């Protein structure tokens, strides 16, 4: 069967099980768009190509499959850069397809020509230029394999316009991926294994550090089995949230810069850390020189380059989290951890009384109230997509996730503007799930143009803007470390409810704590997208906080007297 390169691309994507493509057309990708129109693929027209990559990313994170984004050459492709980097840092399987000028024009600075493979080399797992129609099917197959095997990541396929236009014989079965024959490393070194088992069976104060690798490898059951068998409490990274039920008594909660005090103290006092699918990011460890000094470390990790990168470990088990845990668990004895667990409970008791939820209603609306009410009202079952900043940390603290892939958030890159488009992607991945966007007034203004995408696609998501009139997290740093010199953090915003109305979306503004629950309820009852502008306390801070570069146990604790500032006037 003779097809054009553009038709082959659409056919290949269909064969690979793709249903949705998030993209934006342009000259160098027009042949593909023409073919898309004749295919069964559903194209979602975004308002900015950054949104397309975040949507594909959100789609991938919510579903576990590969998300696909598409753009034209030049500015279309460069607009994708932030989204690609976001996916790279959080190991998200995204395939980006960009149009490129015709191969005979390559290198001539033709209109909208840019070296996008050169630009994205350090922020993709792999990228490739295709300049022959004959190579399209095989390359796209390879891209999907690379994106979603091993440690997942984004792959960019740049297809020249002449390759899209040329015709050639299409044979899917013959277009076999030809990936380089890589060395297969011996993943499970027996000596390392024995050492890990020995450490596990002799530890007195162990803590498990659970990361996103558990979710990526689908190791939730194996992990639970492991936790039950070795009876060790679990601390989670931000991206690990959901890998183990928050309601489980063995789950301590999130660790790190804004982790609860008992979690960080438990880590600092531990004698063994078992890191599973996490990478000892600086936001998790604090000062490395004082990090868990008395602890031996076991690292279960698929990426060999992460071993000993930040923290020197005593046993490295390189490989897929599920396989490794399944192999490890039968060798673990179930020792009595009573003393250690009750010690952690004591630590927890001390912190819990400082919790904002324990404070009487004083008429002030705190972001934590909104998140907590949202959690209660949705029974923790919604997919929550957050942006980056204070609200993101409050979400992690007050929304308790019991299921994997129900928190979608930009961790490694910390990309503001991620939430709204990523939520659109998540909704396409899980159309039957309730999707909530939790976003600050700063980040929302970065990508709010995608409200139009929501309307055009007639999708139903709920948007909670945590509006404090500041770039809150930066303001918090200025408060703590720059003597409250609030430079460039006070932020003017439009009337978000009216803005939503202008897009044809129902919008509301909430200023009182007492109105939060009913607003959430009413939004949930609607079959359409609803935006709620929560005007929260302006100068509230996220506690506890480990200042950047400080030791993990040196936290700024939640003040026992919460700030008594005037509530934001509507």
């Amino acid at each position, binding site marked *: 069967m003779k097809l054009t390169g553009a038709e082959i691309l659409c056919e290949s994507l269909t064969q690979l099980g793709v249903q949705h493509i998030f993209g934006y057309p342009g000259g160098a990708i027009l042949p593909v768009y023409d073919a898309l129109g004749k295919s069964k693929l559903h194209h979602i027209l975004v308002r900015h190509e950054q949104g397309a990559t975040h949507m594909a990313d959100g789609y991938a994170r919510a579903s576990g499959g590969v998300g696909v984004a598409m753009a034209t050459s030049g500015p279309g492709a460069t607009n994708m850069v932030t989204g690609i980097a976001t996916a790279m840092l959080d190991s998200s399987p995204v395939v980006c397809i960009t149009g490129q000028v015709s191969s005979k024009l390559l290198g001539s600075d033709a209109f909208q020509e840019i070296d996008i493979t*050169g630009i994205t*080399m*350090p922020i993709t*797992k792999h990228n490739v230029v295709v300049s022959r129609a004959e190579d399209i099917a095989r390359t796209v197959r390879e891209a999907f394999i690379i994106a979603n*095997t091993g440690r997942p990541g984004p792959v960019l396929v740049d297809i020249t316009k002449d390759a899209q236009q040329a015709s050639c014989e299409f044979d899917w079965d013959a277009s076999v991926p030809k990936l380089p*024959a*890589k060395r297969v490393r011996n993943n499970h070194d027996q000596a390392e294994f024995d050492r890990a088992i020995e450490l596990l069976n002799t530890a007195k104060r162990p803590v498990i550090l659970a990361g996103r690798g558990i979710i990526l490898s689908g190791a939730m059951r194996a992990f639970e089995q492991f936790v039950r068998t070795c009876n060790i409490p679990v601390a989670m990274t931000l991206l690990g949230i959901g890998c183990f039920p928050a309601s489980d008594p063995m789950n301590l909660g999130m660790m790190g810069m804004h982790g609860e005090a008992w979690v960080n103290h438990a880590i600092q006092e531990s004698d063994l850390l078992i890191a599973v699918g996490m990478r000892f990011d600086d936001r998790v460890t604090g000062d490395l020189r004082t990090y868990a000094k008395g602890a031996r470390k076991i690292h279960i990790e698929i990426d060999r380059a992460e*071993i*000993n990168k930040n923290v020197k470990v005593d046993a490295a088990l390189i490989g897929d989290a599920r396989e490794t845990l399944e192999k490890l668990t039968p060798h673990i004895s179930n020792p009595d951890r009573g003393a250690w667990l009750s010690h952690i409970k004591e630590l927890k008791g001390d912190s819990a009384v400082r919790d904002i939820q324990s404070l009487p209603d004083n008429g002030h609306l705190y972001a934590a109230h909104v998140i907590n009410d949202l959690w209660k009202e949705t029974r923790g079952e919604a997919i929550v997509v957050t942006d980056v900043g204070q609200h993101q940390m409050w979400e992690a603290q007050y929304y308790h996730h019991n299921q994997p892939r129900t928190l979608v958030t930009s961790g490694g890159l910390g990309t503001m503007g991620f939430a709204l488009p990523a939520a659109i992607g998540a909704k396409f991945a899980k159309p039957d799930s309730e999707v909530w966007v939790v976003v600050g007034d700063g980040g929302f203004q970065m990508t709010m143009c995608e409200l139009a995408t929501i309307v055009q696609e007639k999708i139903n998501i709920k948007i909670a803007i945590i509006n404090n009139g500041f770039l809150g997290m930066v303001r918090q740093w200025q408060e703590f470390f720059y003597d409250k010199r609030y430079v460039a953090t006070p932020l003017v915003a439009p009337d978000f409810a009216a803005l939503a109305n202008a897009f044809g979306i129902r919008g509301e503004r909430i200023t009182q704590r007492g109105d939060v629950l009913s607003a959430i309820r009413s939004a949930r009852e609607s079959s359409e997208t609803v935006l709620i502008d929560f005007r929260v306390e302006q100068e509230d801070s996220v506690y506890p906080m480990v200042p950047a570069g400080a030791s993990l146990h040196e936290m700024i604790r939640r003040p026992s007297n919460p700030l008594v500032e005037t509530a934001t006037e509507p």
Partner: protein
Amino acid sequence: MQTLVAYVENKPGVLNRVSSLARRLNVNIDSLTVGPTENPEIARMTIVAHTDEKGGHRLEASLEKLVDVLLAENITERALLERDLALIKVLADQQSRPHLMELIKVFRARVVDVAPESLIIEVSGTVDKIDGLLEVLKPFGVLEMARSGRISMTRGGDLLRPPVASSATEQSAAAR
């Protein structure tokens, strides 16, 4: 200083990926050589990098993550042979020529080009040996020099072969 050997796909852009990775890891490359292997689709690199053991491990592991890198191995601590080749154009008049010839003999170098006022000397060996020759040639007047960069190979039965396209890799690809 860490020495790594890598087998890579012999195609455009791979050198860029490798050097770009070193840049990203903030590792200064002292020497990087690439050449084809007996298999025209595979090239072999010897990378000598200014970094410590930890940096060497990270470079090795990160290199192997590149799709086009088939194998990367840090051989710094292994018994290995290393060779560098230099062409050195040196001033040589009637008076200095006999002295030069003496030195060339001592260093087991050879003269590969003779001109009325100069010679080109070819020397191969370890970096130290070439640096040593260069040192003694300097007083004669070194006009130009080109060095190949290091190539390395582990000694004896310690083989470093490119992985063959095993059925395992193809199967895993097909399975997905």
